[in-house]
């Protein structure tokens, strides 16, 4: 049906695509550490050594763990397996709340204490009107 040139050009494209996909896959695999935006408390716990470079820790803010005195905010980030204490000075974003997602940027003091320089709120993919939320909670 098609000429041999057409088939060859098609083959050419397919080979380019496969090569590129494999290359990109390998690059991304080897860069995994840099592609992830934050680490979980479990990953922090498993670190071989505490370095003093800037990192990000993410997870849920543990229930009843937020304490604010003067300008200092203390809370616990949990991934429901491990926890890490966070100390932060400054304003927190609007969506920062207990049992909600959070990403803290800063430095590790040791494996269980994290000194944050920036707090980001991470929200989930659920969107609904407030009435629906209340109705769901009553169930």
């Amino acid at each position, binding site marked *: 049906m*098609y000429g041999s040139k*057409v088939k060859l*050009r*098609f083959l050419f*494209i397919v080979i*380019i*695509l496969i090569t*590129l*996909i494999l290359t*990109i896959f390998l690059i*991304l695999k080897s860069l*995994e550490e840099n*592609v*992830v*935006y*934050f*680490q*979980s408390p479990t990953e922090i716990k498993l670190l071989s050594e505490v370095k003093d470079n800037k990192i990000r820790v*993410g997870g849920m803010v543990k229930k009843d763990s937020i304490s604010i005195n003067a300008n200092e905010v203390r809370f616990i980030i949990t991934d429901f397996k491990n926890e890490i204490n966070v100390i932060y000075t400054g304003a*927190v*974003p*609007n*969506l*920062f709340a207990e049992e*909600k997602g959070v*990403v803290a940027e800063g430095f590790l003091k040791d494996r269980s204490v994290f000194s944050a320089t*920036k*707090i*980001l*709120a*991470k*929200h*989930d*993919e*659920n*969107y*609904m*009107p*407030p*009435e*629906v*939320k209340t109705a769901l909670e009553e169930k």
Partner: protein
Amino acid sequence: MFKFFEPNKIFKITSRAPKYVLFLFIIVLSIGLVEALILSPEDYKQSHAVRIMYVHVPSAWISLGIFSSITFLSISGFVFKNKNFFLISKSLAPSGFVFNIIALVTGAIWGKPTWGTWWAWDARITSMLILALFYAMYLISWRIYEDKEKVFKITTFITILGIINVPIIKYSVDWWNTLHQPASINILSKSSIHSSMLFPLMLMTAAFALFSLLIFLMKYNTELIKIKNRGLDRL
């Protein structure tokens, strides 16, 4: 093959269709905006900030859709040596690029009140920026090369490089830890967005798609006029 791509027939359509598309676009956009900005409920967590979604998400979808289309058309054009496919791609690209930029800008505006930052180098946002760069490369290469054969090959290559980024954008939120939340709308499983918010989102998507179609028709019409004037450069 592709007999129906006769320039004269297409020209008749592309010179008449825009006004109808514009009319439809204005209607859908007006209803969509009223739904999105006034009638739709506020979010339980983000309250009114959620309304940025009705611009942000459709823009991102359209820019991804257009990039996929121009890749498909460029590869088909390359394999079957069809010039018309390249012209369609060329006419589609500008609106895709604009929507990509809109998605990035509205994302930043949305990120500030919700996450607490304008920009984050997370996988979703960075890969979306890379898509914008591919769009830019694509559009620039049409301008710098005079030789048509050369442009066809280079743009095809750019789209092939860029298309690999598209599934990365889609799945970045599932594969890696990102600040960006996972997809709310799933074709196979239940969507995690309430139907009262889904409806305006779909309306706005339709409006943006119509706008892209409008810009495409106008661009494509110009391309056909250029060919007519030159006379030599047939499809």
